[in-house]
Every structure is written in C-alpha cells, then in structure tokens.
C-alpha cells in the first residue's frame, strides 16, 4: 500500500561500491550492486512463492483436472449450474456494500476534516475506529442477535415507537450481510480517507468557505476530488476483502442465495469435492482480479507521477 512502490534500482548499495567497482565492466558492476538487494528480497519471494503462488497454481490446476487426471471443464459447468445465482448475489452484495462504505467513509472523514465543533470531532474520531479492531466472525455473531426479528434493533425501534411490533422483521438475510460489511469496513476506508484529507492544503477549503460555500459543497467539490485516489484504493481493498469473508455470510445467512465463500466451504465439508471448490475459487478470483487490476493501475500511475 505504500506509495513508494518497489525498491528503486537506482539506489546504490550501502557498501561495497567504492573505487574498485568503477574499474569493472558495466554489466558486472550493476550485478554486484544488485546482489545485496537480491539477497534481501529472496526470503520474501520464497515465502510468497511457496505459500501463495504454488498453492494458487495447484488450486487452478485442480479446477481443470478430472478424476482420471485429464483435462475437463466439468467442474466449471457444475459451478455455473449450481452457483450462478450465488455468484451474482455475491457480486451484488459486495458492490452495494462498497457503495455504502464510500458514502459512510466520505461523510465521516468529511466531518472530521470540516467539522466545526471540536468536541463532536474528537468524539467521532474516537468512536469510528472501534469496528477496526473487531474480527469479522465477532461482527457476524453480534449482528446475528442485533438484527434478528426479536433482536435489539427491532426492540429499540419498537420502544421508540418508530415501528409497530407487527411490522418488525428479521434482517438476517442479504441486508444483514451488507450491514455487517459496511459496519466493519467503513472505518478502514475512513481511516485512509481522513488521513488523506488531513494532508490537504487548507487554503482551498478556507477560500471556498470565505466565499460562502456550504460545507457539503466544499466536501464534494473541493476536498473529494483531491482525495479521490485514496478513496478508490481503500474501496478496492475493501471490495477484495469482503469477497473473501466466510464467517459473516455463514453466521447471518448460510442459505441460498448466499455468498460464494459459503459454497466453497460447503463443497469441501459436505462432499470433499475440492475440484468444484477450486473452480468456484477461480471464478471469485476472476472477480477479485478486476479490483486488483484497477488497484495496480492506480498504484502504478501514482508511482509514475512520483507521488
């Protein structure tokens, strides 16, 4: 996530350069300056290779391998036959959550930057980070009792007279999953965006305020365009994270339609069917790849512009 990107090749090695290297041929010199960098990066590369790339490749191969070892597309056919609805549902839930997270994060970060009551800002700053430290599985558990038909939310709404007891309904379906995701991920994006907003030069904001612009206009027209990149990166990271969460859909709504992670766990646990599970993983990887491509393009652009 660092904006610095990969280590710059132009940096000289901390030692060993010196006069003697200058006498050697150009190619040899560049290799010798690379050695320490290579040595430093090797352990990380090995870990990534052994624990991430190899399992990923094995999983990809498994998705195309028939029981007799030959090539087959049967696992994808089965995945699409049984789980197309869940794939669409997953995409819908995650997309909707991402939009809501953007709104919530912008609102909170905007108030932290433009709010005029120091006390309210301090309280909000203290409060909004709490969900960051709560694991997804706990979020799922909390929501399970909070959002139930006779749960705390409906009790509060009935108690305040906002709804009639008869119209209370359970939100332990797609709505529950969206609420849990937004509750958990909005603070993360807020943290990034609020940081970026705090780093902005205040002149534009103050000029706009002096000219009589209301705060929401300052937020939408002055502040937001300047932190757009950070906001998008935060959203892409949230998007990819939410795609991979198993605990929340499992605890709130494991029945159809459900998220693809539940189906992956179900294929393995009930049928020991790793092939279809692998195919489902590849399909969700495809979805995540859109996010990753977007993120990389943005990160590269920032690195190139020297930000």
């Amino acid at each position, binding site marked *: 996530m660092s904006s610095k990107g990969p280590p710059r090749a132009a940096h000289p090695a901390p030692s060993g350069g010196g006069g003697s290297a200058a006498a050697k041929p150009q190619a040899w010199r560049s290799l010798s300056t690379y050695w320490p960098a290579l040595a430093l990066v090797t352990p990380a590369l090995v870990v990534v290779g052994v624990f991430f790339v190899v399992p990923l490749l094995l999983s990809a191969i498994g998705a195309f391998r028939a029981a007799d070892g030959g090539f087959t597309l049967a696992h994808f056919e089965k995945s699409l036959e*049984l789980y197309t609805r869940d794939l669409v549902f997953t995409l819908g839930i995650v997309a909707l959550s991402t939009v809501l997270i953007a709104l919530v994060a912008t609102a909170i970060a905007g108030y932290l930057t433009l709010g005029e009551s120091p006390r309210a800002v301090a309280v909000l700053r203290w409060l909004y980070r709490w969900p960051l430290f709560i694991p997804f599985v706990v979020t799922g558990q909390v929501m399970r009792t909070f959002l139930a038909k006779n749960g705390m939310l409906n009790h509060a709404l009935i108690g305040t007279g906002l709804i009639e007891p008869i119209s209370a309904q359970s939100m332990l379906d797609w709505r529950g999953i969206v609420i849990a995701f937004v509750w958990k991920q909005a603070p993360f994006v807020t943290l990034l965006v609020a940081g970026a907003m705090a780093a902005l030069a205040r002149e534009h904001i103050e000029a706009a305020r002096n000219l009589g612009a209301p705060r929401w206009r300052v937020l939408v027209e002055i502040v937001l365009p300047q932190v757009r990149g950070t906001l998008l990166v935060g959203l892409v990271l949230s998007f990819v994270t939410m795609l991979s969460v198993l605990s929340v859909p499992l605890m*709130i709504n494991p029945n159809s339609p*459900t998220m693809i992670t539940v189906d992956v766990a179900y294929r393995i*646990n009930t049928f*020991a069917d790793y092939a279809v599970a692998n195919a489902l993983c590849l399909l969700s990887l495809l979805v995540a790849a859109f996010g990753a491509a977007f993120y990389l393009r943005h990160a590269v652009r920032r690195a190139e512009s020297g930000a």
Partner: protein
Amino acid sequence: MKSRMLLSVAVLGLFAATPAVAQTTLNVVTAGDQNMVDYVNNYLGPRFEKMNPGVQVRAVGTGPGDSGSQKIYEKLSAQQKAGAATWDVDVAVVHQRGAATMVGDKLLMPYRNDIAAGKLVSRDTAKNALGADVDGYVLPMFHSQIAFAYNPDLVKAPPKSFGELAEWVKKNPKQFGYNGVKGGMSGVGFVMGWVAANSGMGDKLEKGPYDPAAKATIEKSLTSLKDFNQYVVMTPGNAGTLDMLNRGEIAMGPVWVDMFYTWMADGKMNPKVKLELPSPGLPGQPMYYVIPAKAANAAMAKKFIDFAESPEVQADGIVKQFNWYPGIDPQYVQSKLEPAAWNKLFTDISPATLAKNGRPFPLSQYFTDIVEGYERVVLK
C-alpha cells in the same frame, strides 16, 4: 571428580523419584460440537486419568458436522500416505459418513471384539454406517436424533406427519423454520425426512441398493419442498433454529434432541417448548469411537473406549449429564439410572415412537443425490 560423582548421584535420584509408569498422552480427536470436547475434557478424561495413573487424556475438537470428520480423515490419510510408522491420533470420534470412508481407506483398526463392552451394543448402526460395512471397527458413543421442537403456546396440535406439516405451514406462514442444507445437520436431516416421506422410497434410501435412476424421483419430491419453502423461515444454523424458537420468532423447527435438552438444562431455552417426532420419521445418527490403524497407544485406546462404553459411564455421562441416547443397548443403561433421569430423556418422545420414527440417514450415494438435488431444484 567428586562433584561429577555427586551430580550423577543426583541424576540417578531424580530418575528414581519419577513414578514407575511412564507418562502416556492419549490423543483423543473428536468431531462434533463443543459439547463433545467438553465431554472428553471435563467428564471422561479426568475419570480415566484417575483410574490409570501416568496417563494424560488430551482432547481436540475438529468442528461440527461431517466437515469435522472430514478433517480427521484428511489428517489420518496424510499420515498414511507419508508412510508414518505411528499416527498421532489414538482415539477418534467421527460421524457415520467419516467412519464409512475411513474403513474403506483402511485407516482404522478393528477392535470391537478385543474389548468387553463390545458385546453390549445391539443397534444396527454398530455394523452398518449409511450402507457401508463397518462391523468391528466402530462402537457408537451415543445416538442422537432430530425432532421437531415446537412452542405449545403457539401450536396447540403439532403436525404428526410431513403431510400435515405441509398443510400447517400454509395456514401458519413463516412460523416453521429450518436451516437449509448448508447450515448444519438438523436442516439436512429435515430434507432427508422430507424426501423419505414424499418420494415413497423411504426404505430404499436406507437399505439400498443404490439406483442412480432414482434421482428423478428424488428431484420430484424436492419440487414440492421448493413450494413448501415459500411458507417457511430459513434459520442460520442448528443453534439458529433453537435461538429463533426461544425468541418466539418461529413456532416450530427441526432440532437435535441432545442440543435441545442441553439448552433447556442451561436455561437458554423457553422451558415450555416441547418435542415431536413426526411420521414416517426423521433421521438420527450415532457418533462412533474409532481407533486409527497405526495409533501410537492402541492398547490404551482400547482401554479408554472400554471405559467410555461401560454401562456406568453411559448412564451417568451420556444420558444424565449430556442428554444423549445411549450408544450401547439401553437395557444395560436403564438399570444404572434412577427412573426420573431415564424418563426425562423420553418425556416428549416415547421409546416406542423413537423406535418407529427414529430413522437412519440415507445411504451415502443417496445422501449426496439429495443434498445436490436440493441445490439444483430447491435453491434455483
């Protein structure tokens, strides 16, 4: 020189001080809910350790449902493939599907005839696990049963059969809840019961032979389940059904009898809620004690299971404390319990009803056809 001698004397003394029996750790790995781990750690383990000085019982849980057994299977299978001389699991507690696969892959050791308690089992499940021959390799730890739990304040006359249930939900929409096939076995069991009742192939599902052509009949009965589902609530898991019953959000739903009684005993369940076992029946299943083929402490494992299957432990531990139906023949257990404790287990469901409507799960192949059919027909 002198100090070295002193040191060796001290070392010798240290050895002499340790008890003659070497410390043995008996690794018990159990699938199932947390109550299974609690049972071994809090009940069985301490008693067995007291009787066998120098033995330490260590229980590990691998999680609920067939996936828990699947994890044990994968661990043993990996050790088999690696050619390990001894395996680090001494006793495993697994579901029927897991036991059938493990026997098929030669991962288990036959032991029933080696222990005294082996003669106390009578039910068919000691020999047959979902159509697979497991004779000699397993002893049922307990039997559990799925039944409808209902709130008598809301349901005066609970449906006695699946046919009556289908009528009932139309009159009382969103009052029946179950957890589908992806949220735990009580929902899976309900689906099995539905298919057995509506496909007209109940007996064939349990006894075989397997006929792939029956898929069409199965899927036809699932079509009516799709219609049924419009009138019911989907709950989040086995515990989710109990939760919703307790909060009054549903009036009826399928639950595991032992979980139900445990929740009741812990004060987590409305004490008015009752059980009903409808006709033609709902499935139940045992959990099995098994010993891996190359268990490091096989002799001690046999001793442990013999103890766990003794009428005293089955009476006090399995029935009285954990509300399971006994794994061995009830006649040996009933005499060890006062009538009140025994009757508590049969308050709502009589032994006769249990014998008639307590069914085994279908054969593995039918099981797979039914849950996949559910995904194909009901969830689409």
